């Protein structure tokens, strides 16, 4: 329900994100809803945060539209919203590969970009989320291999969590 609400707000009220602090308040309400309705999601998000923040050079900031943002070399790798939606920026070709292999979905707002979304809903999703961040980390630190299919091993991946 929290994710559906998030989709409705971002689709029909996109102008709110331009009003100072509104996105932060909305993120706060999302976190509150997660706390009350799906508290286990915090365990997954905390686990991801602990793991990624231990990687060399990583630092975290508050995302401009709300959420925890992971950065390296003054560049954003991706961010996680309070409802458990993870957004990562890849190139468009990598994005197409990730979507065709059902690893990630189209970004919830920016369709014509390299952004992908992934919905963290159960404990198994933590592994996939960490893999996505790892690839984003390699990309931003120029460690990205030339050929994505060779790099992504099928056994590393878990089936995508469909948006429900």
């Amino acid at each position, binding site marked *: 329900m929290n994710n559906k609400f998030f989709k409705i707000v971002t689709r029909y009220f996109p102008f709110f994100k331009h009003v100072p*602090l509104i996105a932060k308040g909305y993120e706060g309400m999302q976190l*509150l809803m997660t706390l009350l309705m799906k508290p286990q999601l915090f365990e997954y998000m905390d686990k991801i945060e602990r793991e990624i923040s231990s990687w060399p050079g990583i*630092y975290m900031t508050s995302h401009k539209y709300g959420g925890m943002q992971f950065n390296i070399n003054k560049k954003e790798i991706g961010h996680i919203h309070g409802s458990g939606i993870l957004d990562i920026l890849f190139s468009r070709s990598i994005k197409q590969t990730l979507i065709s292999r059902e690893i990630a979905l189209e970004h919830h707002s920016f369709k014509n970009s390299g952004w992908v979304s992934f919905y963290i809903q159960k404990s198994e999703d933590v592994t996939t989320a960490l893999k996505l961040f790892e690839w984003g980390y390699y990309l931003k630190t120029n460690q990205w291999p030339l050929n994505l299919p060779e790099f992504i091993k099928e056994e590393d991946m878990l089936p995508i969590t469909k948006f429900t």
Partner: protein
Amino acid sequence: MKLNVNPVIRGMIAANAIGLLLVAISKWIIDYTERNRLPDVGGIFVFSDFIIVPVLMGVTCAFFWRNSQLTGKQYTWNAVICGLYGILLSAIVLREGVICLIIVSPLIFGFIIGGVSIGRYLFKKKNNTLNVSFVSILFLFLVSDSLSVHTYDNMVADVVTIKASPEQVWKYVDAYEPIKEKPSFWLFRVGMPYPVQSTVDGHYKGAGRKCVFSNGYVFDEVMSVYDQNKELTFDITHQPRDPEIMGHIDILKGQFILKDNGDGTTTLTGNSWYRLYIAPVWYYDIWASSITRNVHLRVMEHIKYLAEHEQ
């Protein structure tokens, strides 16, 4: 003697102390403009009281919690507890009622948690220049917002089709017997006053009308348009100054329009004009229009029942 208070508790105490101080500053600015006959800012509470203040409270909490190794879940829970203390203080110090606190609580919780999220990463970066700038900008925004005009006028309309002629419906439009049915709207059920009866001094233009609410409040009105079987418009001349809701909204005018559908039915339209003295409008107008619509519907459904029952 040094008190060894848990940093989480210290953060909550400091946040609420700062919150109270900022609201006091904001209210002093508004009172000052009124006392000195400066341009009327119109607001009782402004945008910043519900957004900037909770954000700064959240940032204050995060400052005190910065070395506590809290998880995201603990940050959020503690922010909720801090918000609960803030709401409790609002009830005691600002004498806000239960309905007002129910309406305002999503904003308070959302922006305190949002402020904690901002501060959580802000203070980790150990960039004091940025931290001071951020807090200073928010404070300046609070002051400038308190000096800005905050009134907002709106009108809401509702339509009901009644299986009766306009003549039959008209009998119950200006005055009606007490509504005995219990309210269905959830805010009315938790204690918000709702309309129960309307009385008139006479059936002509200029006559007085009274709308009585469940807690005994009376709205005094004068009928400015009395076009039999077609239109009744009334101006509100006096309304109760209830600290719960009525200090934040004024009902300006009401209207009933009857339209003969030519098939034995009548379309009854209820219009109300109101002015909000509270911001942010985009949030409070959702509540104001919803409450006004439910006042309309309670009265209009009663008129419908009376007119159809007579048949």
